[in-house]
């Protein structure tokens, strides 16, 4: 009997041991609901990269990774439930892919000592690491996106857009309102006229907004949309024959499924980005070989190279590189969330590293520091080619208006620090 118990205990320990040693990366995904079309490719890219690391490299630093997927349906309450139910599993970093969930998680992760990475979304002023110790939004944030769009217009108009009319068509939510302050500040600097056109959730009916655009004939339209709002806006723009090359979306309005329903008429539409597009990168060959061809892909394997798949894969790569940095810093392969936070704060991404990872020129080079959790805010521009059904980069990753954005980040983070009695500074 004793022998039997001992055998069972050893077996149980052996079964439990690898699970304890895993590096746990939760994926708060949404594969259902109104935003599933965007959530699925992102979640697939995120999952496939970690599967690649396990299959090709045996994990990170010799420790296998474990993905904990939890369905949020892009619902803030469900997102918080997912966080609460997975944080005890040794979660190293959360990437909720939702600004609403992010806002709810900021105080929670800070109290629990778990890092939160909100790449291109979330609370923009979290770039100030002296206030938001556990929140990171490198390499770019919403305000960089707004500034990147204006910089592109400046560049393509000989450096002068004074007197030009710009309309912002935005999702009438906290997310959609994010760029307004930045665009208003930039308006003071560059002298353009700004018209604000909110679109209520979900955004299926936008006739009023586009009739107003037809009446007022702005020179450019900038869009801050998500979900069905994107497809309808691009269709309505083509209906009123608004020139697509003068229509720029944020990176959440610039995926294949946003433009495909409008067909050929979407040709020339543009979107800002903080990572490259297409599947012409060696890392995708590895994903095909080690993940898709072996039947271990999260999806059907047909999303590789799509904008949001690439973004999910990029997010996973940044998490994995931060984990590697943490392992090197602390001299242990089995890192804790606190060590992961240190790794994220010391993360260095340069072109040599990106090339070695099979992603040459896939994203900008940047360093993270205690003071700057947002990176340099470099932004590029992509354009849709309807005939070939491909997005392509039409500019390099370029600097945004650090002066304006820096001041806004300082102001907003200072008010957050005051509201929450946070003493700003690097510890």
């Amino acid at each position: 009997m004793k022998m039997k118990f001992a055998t069972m205990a050893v077996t149980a320990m052996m079964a439990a041991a690898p699970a304890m040693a895993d590096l746990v990366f939760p994926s708060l995904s949404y594969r259902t609901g109104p935003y599933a079309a965007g959530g699925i490719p992102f979640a697939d890219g995120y999952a496939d990269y970690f599967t690649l690391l396990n299959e090709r490299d045996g994990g990170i630093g010799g420790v296998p990774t474990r993905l904990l997927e939890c369905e949020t349906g892009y619902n803030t309450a469900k997102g918080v439930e997912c966080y609460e139910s997975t944080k005890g599993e040794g979660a190293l970093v959360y990437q909720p892919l939702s600004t609403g969930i992010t806002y709810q998680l900021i105080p929670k992760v800070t109290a629990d000592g778990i890092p939160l990475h909100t790449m291109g979304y979330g609370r923009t002023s979290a770039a100030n690491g002296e206030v938001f110790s556990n929140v990171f939004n490198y390499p770019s944030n919403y305000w960089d996106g707004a500034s990147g769009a204006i910089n592109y217009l400046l560049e393509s108009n000989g450096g002068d857009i004074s007197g030009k009319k710009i309309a912002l068509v935005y999702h009438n939510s906290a997310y959609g309102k994010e760029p307004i302050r930045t665009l208003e500040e930039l308006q003071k600097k560059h002298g353009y006229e700004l018209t604000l056109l909110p679109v209520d959730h979900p955004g299926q009916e936008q006739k009023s907004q586009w009739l107003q655009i037809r009446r007022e004939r702005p020179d450019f339209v900038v869009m801050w949309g998500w979900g069905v709002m994107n497809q309808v806006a691009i269709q309505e723009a083509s209906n009123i024959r608004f020139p697509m090359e003068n229509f720029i979306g944020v990176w959440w309005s610039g995926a294949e499924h946003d433009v495909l329903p409008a067909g050929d008429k979407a040709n020339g539409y543009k979107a800002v980005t903080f990572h490259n597009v297409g599947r012409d990168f060696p890392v995708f060959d590895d994903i095909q070989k080690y993940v898709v061809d072996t039947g271990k892909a999260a999806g059907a394997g047909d999303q590789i190279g799509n904008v949001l798949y690439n973004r999910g894969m990029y997010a996973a790569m940044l998490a994995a590189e931060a984990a590697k940095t943490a392992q090197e810093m602390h001299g242990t392969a089995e890192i804790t969330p606190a060590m992961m936070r240190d790794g994220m704060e010391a993360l260095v991404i340069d072109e040599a590293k990106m090339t070695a990872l099979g992603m040459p020129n896939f994203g900008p080079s940047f360093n993270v520091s205690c003071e700057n959790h947002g990176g340099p805010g470099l932004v590029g521009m992509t354009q849709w080619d309807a005939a070939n059904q491909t997005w392509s980069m039409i500019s390099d990753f370029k600097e945004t208006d650090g002066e304006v954005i820096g001041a806004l980040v300082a102001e907003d983070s200072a008010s957050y620090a005051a509201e929450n009695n946070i003493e700003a500074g690097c510890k």
Partner: protein
Amino acid sequence: MPESLLYGTEVVLNGLMAGVLYALVALGFVLIYKASGIFNYAQGVMALFSAATLVGIMKGQVPFAHLINAALGTEIHHFGWHVPALLAILLTMGVMVLLAWAVQKFVFRHLVNQEPIILFMATIGLAYFLEGFGDLMWGSDIKKMDVGLPQGGSFWIEENTQWLGFGNENFYGFFLDQLDLVATAIAAVLVIALVLFSQYTKQGRAMRAVADDHQAALSVGISLNFIWVMVWSVAGFVALVAGIMWGAKSGVQFSLSLIALKALPVLMLGGFTSIPGAIVGGLIIGVGEKLFEFTVGPLVGGATENWFAYVLALVFLVFRPQGLFGEKIIERV
């Protein structure tokens, strides 16, 4: 003509067109409510399911491909053929009739004589089931709806109304979306057909008899089962038409199921039991919300349409609780 009047007219015309699209969704609700007293929460999801089925059939997509591939290790996705739009619409209608039969056999047949709230709850369950079933069957990616309907502003209307500006360079002629014009024509045909069907056919009269009094209809030999399958099939057809029109605008995707939200104020205003009420209600809501957005929207920051539609419906309810064309219910105590 003053600029504001021209633009106001354009807004009214586009509001009428939007109203027709709302009415198309509301019609499905009315048909089922009229015949069975069930408020069909699943009507929006039926529009999504029918539109996804149509696109799937047209593209020759293998239904449940992901499930089959996961279970059998195969890699099938498409049959390799393309089905013409008209044939695909007919096949989709066949699927909707099957769905109607299944809904009747497996859900409502077992709930005869239950309270309306129980039936309503059953439709909520049906909506969630259909949502997941549709995703499993056709996938949740966004699909392009291409049945050959024209889209974009009509050049002809623009060119032939430009003179109304009397030389005003800021007026480019009226904008009317060709898809909206087609939707209006189809809605008109649909309403006439539905009215003719319910007034002049044996099945239509039986449907009205069931709507008036289930037990009296049963006593004269009308099969409740058959009538309800027929009504759900017709509602499925209306959902398909709404799914095609809305799907052409936004692509076929989950949000298509949310168009039901646009139908609710229309129903409140037009009444739950009147086909003409759904049309008139749709037109009033369409014009009302667009005019409000045009005139008051800029003063309050815009995005007024969603809430204004409900406010407008509520104002009507104060004066006519049964809606404009609804039946006045008098219960003796």
